[in-house]
């Protein structure tokens, strides 16, 4: 999405296979490496980035990478995915911009549930 919008996007992943799922017209850079290794982050230019988004499957890895981007590399906008809602709340309080897909998903589901009687009513 960001690439199609014309942003300059760089993707970092531990697994080279992960890039296979990128659309063929993806124009950004791809790097293989560990996102919590300061040398790797520095090599791919995190220091010059305007924004840093971290969405690995590991909450703790995301938390560490996000804090490194923010506090070591001084990236102005850092967004971090944390599945565990409790950890998400804590790091949000500590000043990270965080999103918990668990929480967002749960509230979407709840909304859908709460909408249902109305639509069923109108369908009858």
């Amino acid at each position, binding site marked *: 999405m960001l690439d199609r919008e014309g942003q300059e996007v760089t993707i970092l992943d531990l697994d080279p296979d992960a890039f296979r799922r990128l659309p063929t017209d993806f124009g950004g850079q791809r790097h293989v490496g560990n996102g*919590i290794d300061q040398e790797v982050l520095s090599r791919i230019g995190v220091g010059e980035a305007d924004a840093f988004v971290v969405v690995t499957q590991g*909450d*703790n890895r995301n938390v*560490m990478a996000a*804090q490194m981007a923010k*506090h070591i590399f001084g990236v102005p906008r850092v967004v971090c995915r944390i599945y565990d809602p*409790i*950890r998400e709340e*804590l790091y949000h309080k500590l000043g990270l911009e965080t999103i918990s897909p668990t929480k967002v998903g749960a509230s979407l589901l709840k909304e859908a549930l709460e909408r249902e009687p109305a639509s069923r009513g109108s369908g009858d």
Partner: protein
Amino acid sequence: MYIIVVGGGKVGYYLAKELVEEGHEVLVIEKDSTKAERIAEELGDISLWGDGCEASTMEMAGFGRADMVIAVTGDDEDNLVACQVAKAKFNVPRAVARINNPKNEEIFKKLGIDTTVSATAAILAQIEQEIPTHPLVPLLRLKGGGLEIVEVKVPVNAAVVGRRIDDILLPPQSIVALVIDKEGEPRVPNTDTVVQGGDEVVAVTRTENEDALRSAFTSAAASGSKGSKDKKR
């Protein structure tokens, strides 16, 4: 003290064992149920099966009353988060993290975890300790203050051999805390303590005075037999 150890691998296991022997109340949190059971079988009922970064497990473990948390899993990021959550959510007074990548020491410090232990760094320090040209080993940097605790091995031909601690000219803001003799017997020095060749001196000093402190204890005596650094052991 109530000490919680996060991670029940080899490091966690032996750490918990030692801490129990020292009389501390210890709890080990381990993700792997087999490892958690093994600890319970061998060390008694001191293990909890769970994720040491998950709030519900942490509450069950009693992080709220812990005096110290030591995170020693094999993953630096898990150790970081366990320590940060322990401090921020449960107000644990002391949190110590094991790090695998020695470069993470600085990063952890910037992220609020001042005490880190790195096996890699310790091995490097040990190597430096064995190299005669670098007899000073920084043991611990004290947070913020620019002070550190260092260890200096006194060569047998050093000028200070046979002198009283009180008569040795130390750099500013330095104090000798401990003298460990060749037999490994540590003594807290008084003014009359005499330094012997082969002693290990543990001192507190300012980081910038490290070199001055080292030369104070290692400079060869003017008339001393030159160069022959007797190997002990």
